[in-house]
């Protein structure tokens, strides 16, 4: 009844060769961190040590790298799973081929975002940082508590950094209407 092979077959999706996009791996290789992707020989050290993989099977670094190399653009960049990477660097430290896997996942997230695939929290954080320069802007009350604890009062925000977020805000405002959420 509980035959894993049978289950895998039932859940499997056929990917037509004609839908594969051989330019994807090159595009990823051009992103900072994506350079070494072709070095991967699929040993699975990354997936074996991945803390996210242990608790959520939708995230599987070896599989994701294979999908990129095969050119499965829609399946990688259109799905939410790339965002599950914890950026813990366990895989990157252990990869026998020196693939910078954490940086590679960051590159995939950057590419996914440009097509509007991102968690809801990302545009909220980006807006907050563009306006305030910090994820936790302080107010007068916070500063009172700081002073009471013997800590110096701090500026409530750093709005001056806004212009550094210009490129990101442009992408996000274009994607605003059609943004996917998971």
């Amino acid at each position: 009844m509980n035959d894993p092979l049978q289950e895998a077959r039932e859940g499997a999706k056929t990917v037509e060769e004609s839908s594969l996009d051989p330019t994807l791996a090159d595009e990823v290789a051009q992103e900072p961190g994506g350079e070494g992707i072709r070095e991967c020989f699929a040993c699975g050290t990354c997936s074996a040590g991945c803390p996210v993989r242990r608790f959520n099977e939708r995230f599987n670094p070896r599989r994701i790298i294979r999908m990129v190399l095969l050119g499965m653009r829609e399946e990688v960049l259109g799905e939410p799973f790339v965002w599950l990477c914890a950026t813990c660097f366990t895989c990157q430290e252990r990869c026998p081929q020196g693939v910078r896997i954490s940086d590679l996942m960051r590159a995939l997230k950057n590419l996914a975002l440009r097509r509007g695939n991102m968690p809801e929290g990302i545009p909220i954080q980006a807006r907050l940082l563009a306006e305030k320069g910090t994820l936790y802007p302080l107010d007068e009350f916070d500063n009172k508590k700081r002073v009471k604890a013997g800590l110096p009062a701090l500026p409530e925000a750093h709005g001056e950094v806004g212009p550094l977020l210009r490129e990101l805000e442009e992408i996000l405002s274009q994607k605003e209407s059609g943004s996917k959420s998971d």
Partner: protein
Amino acid sequence: MGGEEKEMDRSYALFLGCTIPARARNYEMSVRALARHLGIKLVDVEEFSCCGFPLASADHKVAQSLAARNLSLAEQKGLDICTLCSSCTSSLTETSHELEAHPEELKEVNKRLARLQQAYKGPVRVRHFVRILWEEVGLERIREAVKTPLQGLRLAAHYGCHFLKPSEVYGGFDPVEDPRVLDELIRASGAEAVDYARKKQCCGGSVLVADENTALAIGRDKLVELKELQVDGLVVVCPFCGVMFDSQQKKIEKSFEETYEIPVLYLTQVLGLAMGMEEKDLGLSTHAVKTRPVMEKLKSAVAS
């Protein structure tokens, strides 16, 4: 505290990041108290903003330019940077390295910084406060400063991800697969450093934005083991990990219908206690999971 504490030559610009000033004042209090006690000169730089880390997954170059702006502020003042958050440490250290190794990236960053009339040359040296304790203050001086050893206390070290990784930018100051810095510093306080299987495992905090259930499951995994081992506390060096294990512990308990009640302490609070500092000066009453059992155990050890 005697006037003969040795001042260290190097001054550091104190980089607090986003989380600490608002959500981990206990960490900040204990760091400042410890720095004063050990003669580590920390300079406040009000202009520091977010380190860029939260935006790396959205746009690497934007994150890099935010990090570079902070580096340039320290550079203008001729100071190295002392960080307290491990994610800030990795963001600033990686950027300093990347811009040193890739002149074309430095050029691009400076184009962006020019919007704020700022410029960066680099490199700027970045050090986590605990790394400064380890490498510049040294175990010996820390042991000498301990007045009330925390005997009988069983503490578990949580290294987290970005305190040691990526190791290439940290010069591998502690082996990633077999780290010992935090365990040694815990032992220096007089407490026992409890070894455990999931010592190197991530807190899960950075998965919160994408999938809360997965994040909480990762955090829970460690708490369950620590509960079995009956440790008195988990020791962290990053406010991200601190928030995950302390502030979110109730939430994890609720969603898995379990109780752990594991106090989460910053290493600087542990060392501060061992050096005879007051609970209130270390912010020990402000934790989500009460630290009272830790204090009671210490008091009963002294009394017996």
